[in-house]
């Protein structure tokens, strides 16, 4: 008991100390354990690269406090509250699973702290009509739209769909419907499978019977490879299309020859070194790669770590403008100023996208945020 009081006193005095220096404090939550950790660790490394890249706003140092949520939404909520109430952070960034990220948004709304979500979630305004959270990743509908547009360009007239029978499968299917209609493409099937399924022969036979020009894959990661394997087994030779959920080494490892040639939409950072020099993402992505290598001692080509890097860029840009209002970090006024600045981000160049946030929308990217890549010999190749 005595110890904990002593600890509280120390913590409090530290808190005062930081407040006196008017340091900007950022709370970062990611999953470093549990099932979400395969992505959470990447977010962590991306953030390390971000801090390596730039760690001050003007003359002010930025302090980063990082917590693990163990892939558990209730733990993410608790940590978010703790960061705001005890550490007085000016901004929340998090986290690696959609469920946990969604769970953090109400805390941001309630405690009036701006938040940057690094998982693709949909954010509604709070009861007062305000928004406190923005979302970095491309919205799923956009990910699919770019793919459908590419199918049209490739001369596909009708395609078959197979995806997970979960929220992700729905997102991809629903996302494909509107652009398909606009482009005059016909969706032949809406087949579903479960991640634990041992066979998709039935679904594949049905798809083959409709004679599709192409197949759209609404799976993710390792089990995203199950339909291509079954299709190959049944002699399907047509093109395959997918979403960034397939940008995964396990998908390539398990899929082998069957997934060769699959085309997916991806954030440009994934193929940074192949981009033409005129592409907006080229320079910043190469800077990011360099910072990542320096901070983590290993190279990267994943998409996830770049989201935390971009979140950091958006924050730095907004913090500069928020500081200009004269509000002191650590105060409610500063949080409001930071929120307003974030929601007025204008043409900020990041590794994934050119970000434009408006107070009316939590998503801030457009079609420039996605390029098409093709799997050639186990490597993703940029397909302009």
């Amino acid at each position, binding site marked *: 008991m005595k110890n904990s009081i002593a600890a509280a006193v120390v913590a409090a005095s530290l808190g005062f100390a930081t407040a006196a220096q008017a340091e900007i404090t950022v709370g970062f939550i990611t999953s470093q354990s549990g099932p979400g950790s395969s992505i959470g660790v990447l977010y962590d490394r991306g953030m390390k690269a971000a801090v390596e890249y730039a760690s001050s706003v003007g003359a002010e140092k930025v302090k980063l406090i990082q917590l693990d949520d163990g892939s558990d939404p209730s733990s993410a909520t608790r940590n978010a509250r703790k960061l705001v109430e005890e550490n007085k952070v000016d901004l929340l960034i998090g986290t690696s699973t959609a469920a946990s990220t969604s769970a953090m948004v109400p805390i941001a709304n309630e405690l009036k702290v701006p938040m940057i979500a690094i998982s693709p979630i949909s954010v509604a305004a709070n009861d007062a009509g305000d928004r406190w959270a923005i979302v970095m990743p491309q919205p799923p509908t956009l990910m699919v739209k770019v793919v459908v547009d590419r199918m049209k360009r490739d001369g596909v007239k009708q395609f078959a769909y197979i995806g997970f*029978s979960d929220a992700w499968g729905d997102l991809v299917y629903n996302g494909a419907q509107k652009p398909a209609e606009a482009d005059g493409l016909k969706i032949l099937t809406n087949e579903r499978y479960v991640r*634990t399924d041992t066979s*998709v022969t039935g679904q594949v036979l049905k798809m083959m019977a409709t004679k599709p020009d192409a197949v759209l894959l609404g799976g993710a990661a390792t089990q995203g490879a*199950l339909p291509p394997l079954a299709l190959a087994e049944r002699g399907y030779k047509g093109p395959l299309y997918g979403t960034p959920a397939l940008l995964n080494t396990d998908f390539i490892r398990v899929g082998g020859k069957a997934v060769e040639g699959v085309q997916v939409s991806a954030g440009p950072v994934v193929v940074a070194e192949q981009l033409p020099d005129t592409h907006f993402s080229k320079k910043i992505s190469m800077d990011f790669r360099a910072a990542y290598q320096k901070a983590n001692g290993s190279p990267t080509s994943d998409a996830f770590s770049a989201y935390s890097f971009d979140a950091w860029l958006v924050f730095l840009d907004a913090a500069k403008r928020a500081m200009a209002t004269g509000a002191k970090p650590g105060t409610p006024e500063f949080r409001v100023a930071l929120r307003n600045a974030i929601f007025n981000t204008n043409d900020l160049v990041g590794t994934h996208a050119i970000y434009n946030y408006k107070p009316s929308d939590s998503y801030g990217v457009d079609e420039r945020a996605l390029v098409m890549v093709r799997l050639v010999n186990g490597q993703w190749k940029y397909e302009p």
Partner: protein
Amino acid sequence: MNGEIAAILAMDGIASGAIYVLIGLGLVLIFAVTRVIFVPFGDIAAFTALSLASLETGGRPGTVGLVAVLAVLATAVEAVALVRNRAFHRLPRALLFYLVLPLIPAAAVWFAAGTTFSMPVRIVLSLALVLPIAPLLDRIVFRPIADASVLLLLTVAVALHFALSGLGLMFFGPEGVRTKPLTDAVFDVAGLIVNGQMLLILAASIVFCGLLFLYFEFTIQGKALRATAVNRVGARLVGIRPTSTGTIAYLLASLLAGISGVLIAPVTTIFYDSGFLLGLKAFVGAIIGAMVSYPVTALGAVMVGLLESFTSFWLSAYKEVLVFSLLIPVLLWRSLAFAGTEEEEAEE
């Protein structure tokens, strides 16, 4: 749908049904002998697949750690029980069975890490690795509550499943694996492509059903198992130890789980938590067999496989719903047709 598609679907259904048969038989076996609905059964199958994959890449399978922890725990539990009963002379035997034997394959795999074995050796090793898991779990968890009600045993089994899949995540990580196919052979039967893997699954299933039948009909041990299943008290009266029959049942079931794991590993991607659904579908088959009849369980399991395969063609989004809804008419029919015949509990 034409004849060819129907034939392909039927084949696919029978192949996945054959896997459910193996698991379903194991479930019935354990339930008949120990009255435990062994929910973690599928997990053991998944662990075999994961161990096999990890041996394939020359790694150290997480099962080694799992078995070691379980062996130490079981030995401790057994030793405490023996010391309490002052049966010191049985300590060496307990040490041999609960500590040394389970750890032999684990140690072999541990020290051989990095070497790549040939396919048959890998299969035997991963089977030997998972074989002790169910008997050890039995010793740690179920034997102390062997006389509890079926409901309590079921609850404990469910809890055990969650514990095991949590451990699976810890030992194997969140990524799925798929092993190399056991055979690349492809046959052309009357215009239909039949792959060797499918035939292998079928053959293994039939062979093990046959072996089980021979075992129950013609060996003393098998008869002892059947006797325990029919009436525990009666079996004890004629000198059959329920604890040892229980261990044998768990060993046999472990083997069945292991084999289904080996067979399924090349067919699909297996995750640390894939086992549960496998077990659940086999459980539907076992329910059709009323948890007592082996042949009806086998038929039921094949039926589940076929139903799954055909619904995946017609209505893939509702496949799981349809497979599990099969339970409702089956249970209705069971309770109406066999009302009053399932009072064995009361006899004891």
